[in-house]
């Protein structure tokens, strides 16, 4: 475990200043990592002078993250009440805390810890990277199985009976345009097969003249995934 040092504080101030510049430029959102730092690490880290004295690195991290969480909650509630720019207001409140706390802590020697040996830090970093890679692998395994069947990344097929007609809609939730084979079978008629290309996050529709119960649409992707729906029950 390491504790924040002066270079870290300088980094804090730099990141926060960058965040303010981005916000001032009217960008709608910070990206995930800066927002994470701004919400859960930097307020406590930069204001560590005002936190109780910790006995070691672990306790120091708990105090930093805990204080950041508290400040994030308290800053969020008034921010949501603002009619516009509320997330920016939240970020600016936190950034102000970070700058004030960082400057204040930089001027004080209180709470500083001795520098950590470089080799130990490198080992700790390597270990952290290994654990994060394994955890990311676990998440990828779980998420990829969800992607086959439900949740983000699926392809949906909807029918909309309207005015006696049937609307078959293929929606592509994949990140890239996808080619599908769509087979429509209406009772008493043969299969009608079409190859369609659906843009990313877009949809494609087909209107059938009669909404006949038992009409079935089967969608197959080139990757071999299929979905079948039928109007009036499976």
């Amino acid at each position, binding site marked *: *475990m390491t504790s924040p040092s002066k270079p870290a504080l300088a980094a804090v101030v730099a990141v926060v200043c960058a965040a303010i510049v981005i916000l001032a430029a009217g960008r709608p*959102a910070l*990206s*995930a990592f800066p*927002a*994470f730092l*701004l*919400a*859960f690490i930097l307020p406590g880290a930069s204001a560590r002078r*005002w*936190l*109780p*004295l910790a006995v*070691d*690195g*672990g*306790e120091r991290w*708990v105090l930093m993250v*805990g*204080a950041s*969480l*508290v*400040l*994030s*909650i*308290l800053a*969020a*509630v008034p921010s*949501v*009440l603002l*009619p516009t720019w*509320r*997330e920016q207001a*939240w*970020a600016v409140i936190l950034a102000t805390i970070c700058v004030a706390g960082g400057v204040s802590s930089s001027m004080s020697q209180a709470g500083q810890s001795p520098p950590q040996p470089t080799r*130990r830090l490198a*080992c700790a970093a390597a*270990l952290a990277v*290994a*654990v994060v890679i*394994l*955890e990311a692998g*676990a*998440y990828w*395994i*779980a998420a990829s*199985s*969800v992607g*086959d*069947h439900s*949740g*983000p990344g699926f392809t*949906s097929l*909807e029918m*909309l*009976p309207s005015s006696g007609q049937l609307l078959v809609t293929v*929606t592509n939730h994949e990140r890239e345009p996808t080619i599908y084979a769509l087979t429509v079978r209406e009772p008493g008629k043969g299969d009608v097969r079409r190859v369609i290309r659906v843009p990313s996050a877009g949809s494609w529709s087909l209107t059938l003249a009669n909404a006949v119960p038992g009409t079935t649409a089967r969608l197959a992707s080139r990757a071999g995934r299929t979905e079948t*729906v039928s109007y009036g*029950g*499976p």
Partner: protein
Amino acid sequence: MRNTAGWPPLALVLVLIAVGDLFIALADSTSRRGGSGGQVLFWTGIVLVALPSGIYVASRGPARDQRFAVVVTAGLGFYITKVLYIPGGFFESDEYVHFRTARDILSSHALFSFNPLLPEASHYPGLPAVAAIFSRASGLSLPTAALVVVGVSRFVLIGALFALLCRALRSDRAAAVATLIYAANPNFIYWSSQFSYESLALPLLAFILLLLIMRFTQPTRWSDEVILSLAILASVITHHLTSYLLCVILVVASAVAWRRRAEYVPAVAATVAVVATVLWVTLAAPVTVPYLGAIARNSLQHTIDLLAGSSAPRKLFTTATAAAPVWERVVGITSTLVLVAALLWSLPRLWKSRGRLSAAMVGLILAGCVFPLTLPFRLVASAQETANRSTEFLYVGVGATIVLALCIASSHRGARRATGAISIVGGLMLTFLIIGGVTTGTQYSERLPPSAEAHAFPDQLVNSEIAADRWASSHLPRGTRIAGDAVGRLGLATYGRQRTIWPPADGVTDWQVMLPPAVTPEVVRLIRKGQIGYVFIERRLSWGLPSIGYIFNRGEPEDGTRRRPLRPSVLEKFAGGHGVDVIYDNGYESISKVAGIW
């Protein structure tokens, strides 16, 4: 930081925890694909997280920082178990309640919007507000932002508990073991990991207690009081029961400190907590008083009924559709009995040392003593949830009490030999308790995600249902009331942004409209009375029986006693007819407009 000699090395322990999560991911993936062997993979994963951690923290070699690293990584490793269950989504019904509040905050720029899933929840906006704002600021989806916020909260919970126990027990080894005993509480892996206000309130409580014990045990500054007060305010706007508990703890701590003429008396913190809680309940959240009162009344009434013999005790380890294997029941009951026996063994030893115990330790022991008293309430249907959820608080005391007694006993006997064997036995014991906690806290059938291919009752939201909800979000007017089943309402109110039925306000219950075999005059009357504009039909409701016992609402006919699935014709009664227009149908779900029969 001193070097550690011995086995297992820290790096190996941390890597094994991550490998454990890989096994759990494989278990979830296997189950979702309908394969077999998911349970074996799941338990292998749990053991890989628990056993190396347990052995490591029970051994004498590691430094305090190293123990901290292991308990925090294990705590996060267990949290990831829930994340892997449904990556990027939610699965507990409470999660959808707060998901709805967060979406309302983002869309309305207002707090306290009406939440049709649980109106009381929107009056404690701490968690949904921070998740909503973080989602918008980061560009992450709301479920992913929620996952991050709860993950950070879990870090604070485990880290603060470890630091707190280090100070209370004056031993980092004892504190680490007590923290892992805490991780054996039945709610730790799933319930406390969900996107629900308690998942943030509990870490805030642990953080506040850490700040408090730091104020008692080291020189303090005025700024410490400020951060303590801010943390109290954050807790008050996050969760009702936790804020009440906090008031009690701070008032009692103030009284004890004053009586003992302690250097520090937390009178300011206690005043802030009481005043903020009273003001919040009075001005912002008066609805919680009748809400919590009803829960307390129901629990008391059912307990009296059980004692009087007029109602049967609740069946343990079963749902309406599945029962846990025998070995799980044995482990679950045995692990609970082991903890109770350990408490009974500990108390006489601690009584002999009562003069040397700190006020904080006395508080922890008292909390531990309450745990056995809650066990009988697990047999009462309406009180079991309260008893179950209390373990999230009481296990802090349980772990501290048992570990302190073990420390006292070992110091008397001079048990300093065979530390390797002791750490292995300790690790095995901790693993056993954690497995027991999982088996008692989460039903067997709900531990792994259901197969997407299964021809079964949909106990959770599925792909096509979410697609229907999203269609509703983009095509239906906001604010029109829509009736549906219990699971369907979760998706309609969140992904669909619809106004689902809230019986106390609308004067009609979903089952009254949905369960009759036909659109009878009474159904028409109820649709008019409730001003229901749409009904949501999930055809898979006729594919099996619900594990929660009811299909539409608690208390509906055959709640908990249903033996046959719903007849398809019951669901198809809204497929057409006078004033009824099917406006959406994807084969599994359909939405009918019924406003025409008003």
